[in-house]
């Protein structure tokens, strides 16, 4: 297994990026890499060691990270230095509450997912509170979510097509489990560069945007508490679904995110509280385990879409391929445009 990505792969990744970008439209199967068999999942060894980071969801459990002091390296402005490449460890957005359970109602599950073992051998729900792992929808909202979930495989209405499939931003929280992404930090800012859009977290305490401005990624104000980046998100247009299971919020949603980084700076847990009295019966908490990726990791275009930069004679430096969902640049009918071009 090579430990660095060769420069020659760059052109191929350029093509792969486009394929991945279009995957939700063409065939979700292309995005769901087969994971190793689940039979070893019952051993007592730490999850990260049981499965090499090959597929998308390669952990079935993950450690809690406690909020506390930051003892690692800091940037000159005092922020904990957490810059770099990150990705979630338990699965993509196929299924919000059963991240390794495939897409409910999938007419061809075998093609898309590995054979499912018992629920307890798969990663837990991303809903860590309430304890049943379910989003506490009001009855009408539960019915709407299930309507979306059924519609995912039978898009007889435009709203059943996931906006991400049209290159809309993944939004919150889906951006944290749709491909790997990068964190860059600056005095006063933490910047997330996702595969589908960016978020600028303002650390300077300025007020939120006026309430009538609604955005795909909301408006973010953050501050550091020891090892934890705390971010208050408002102004969310809530058009991005959480998953392919139709989970949603309304534009009234208020999200408080806690990014809790481990002492070794190799992992963080995203722990976010969603409050929206117009859709849910109570606030709920979403937890997404995430880990750092470097060029020392095995090649993985889903989690770590980089190549080694052309830097002869120097240590390997990751180069990030232009983050443009090519369909953005084609609008509807991009598939036809592509076909004509090829």
């Amino acid at each position: 297994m090579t430990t660095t990505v060769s420069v020659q792969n760059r052109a191929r990744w350029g093509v792969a990026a486009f394929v991945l970008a279009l995957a939700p439209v063409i065939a979700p199967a292309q995005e769901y890499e087969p994971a190793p068999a689940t039979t070893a999942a019952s051993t007592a060894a730490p999850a990260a060691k049981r499965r090499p980071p090959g597929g998308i969801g390669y952990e079935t459990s993950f450690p809690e990270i406690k909020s506390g002091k930051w003892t690692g390296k800091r940037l000159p402005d005092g922020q904990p230095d957490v810059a770099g490449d990150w990705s979630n460890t338990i699965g993509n957005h196929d299924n919000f509450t059963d991240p390794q359970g495939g897409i409910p109602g999938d007419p061809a599950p075998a093609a898309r997912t590995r054979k499912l073992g018992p629920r307890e051998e798969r990663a837990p729900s991303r809903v860590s509170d309430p304890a049943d792992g379910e989003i506490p929808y009001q009855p009408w909202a539960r019915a709407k979510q299930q309507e979306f979930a059924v519609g995912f495989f039978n898009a007889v209405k435009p709203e059943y097509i996931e906006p991400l499939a049209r290159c809309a931003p993944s939004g919150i929280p889906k951006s944290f489990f749709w491909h790997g992404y990068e964190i860059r930090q600056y005095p006063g800012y933490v910047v997330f560069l996702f595969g589908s859009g960016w978020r600028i977290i303002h650390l300077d305490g300025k007020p939120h945007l006026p309430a009538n401005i609604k955005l795909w990624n909301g408006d973010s104000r953050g501050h550091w508490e020891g090892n934890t980046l705390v971010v208050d998100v408002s102004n969310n247009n809530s058009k991005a679904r959480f998953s392919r299971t139709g989970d949603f919020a309304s534009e009234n949603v208020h999200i408080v995110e806690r990014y809790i980084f481990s002492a070794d700076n190799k992992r963080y847990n995203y722990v976010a509280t969603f409050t929206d009295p117009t859709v849910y019966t109570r606030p709920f908490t979403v937890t997404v385990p995430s880990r750092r990726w470097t060029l020392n990791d095995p090649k993985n275009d889903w989690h770590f879409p980089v190549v080694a930069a052309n830097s002869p004679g120097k240590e390997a430096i990751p180069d990030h391929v232009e983050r443009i969902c090519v369909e953005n640049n084609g609008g509807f009918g991009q598939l036809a445009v592509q076909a004509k071009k090829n």
Partner: protein
Amino acid sequence: MIMREKLSLNLKNTSRRSQSLGLGLSAALAACFLASPVLAASDGDAIVGKIPRVAGGKPDFSGIWQTTSAADQGLEPHEARKGAPPSAGIVDGDVIPYTPAALEKKKKNYEARAKDDPRLKCWTLGTPRGIYYPEPFQIFQRTQDLTLVFEFGDSVRTIHTDGTLHPVDTDNEFWLGDSRGHWEGDTLVVDVRDFNDQTWLSRVGDFHDEALHVVERWKLIDANTIDYKATIEDPKVYSRPWNIEVYLYRHREKNFQLIENYCYTLDYDQYYPIPKPQ
């Protein structure tokens, strides 16, 4: 009206600059000796007053920037059109040296601009158009790179300043190109290659092909103004390299921030109503 006032101010400054370059330069250089620890590079306008610098002394381009020029309405000098203010242009020598065949294509683009301008579809504007497009962009600066986040379409461009080179394979056909920069004194010089042919240079149909090569020169001439120059070459489209120059001004309004503008979603926004109880 406000736009036009700003524009005339800008033009006035430009003409004064070119008429009294000798005198102005020496005066400004003297000021620079007093105020700035690093001597200004010889190209472009001289630095006036103190400019922000990062630890280590390089100029600090961090901030939110925007042109007040009408460059996107046409890089060459033009009279007023409906919906577009007049402009003395930003092309050195006034004329883009299109080859005869390319000039024909540019004219066709102009006729079809109300339909074919990639801006209207919110496609990525590319390089250099994103820089002088009349919508703000933010520069985030580290030692190893500058990250340019464009409000329009939310595209992100990285200028690498870590000594890395263009990729060995140059057929990636990027929208924004592959940007590798280095410092020449206080000027950031950026070599940009590896483009696709999908972007325009203005809303009047100025265009390029995949052979586009852009060399940018970024320089802070005071704390709140960037003198942005670019040399543009593409042997498939132009008979020789040509130059543009435009000023970028810092947004200093209280609490000013980029507001995400994923404008390509506007056409399908209507299909995603927020669910409500029946």
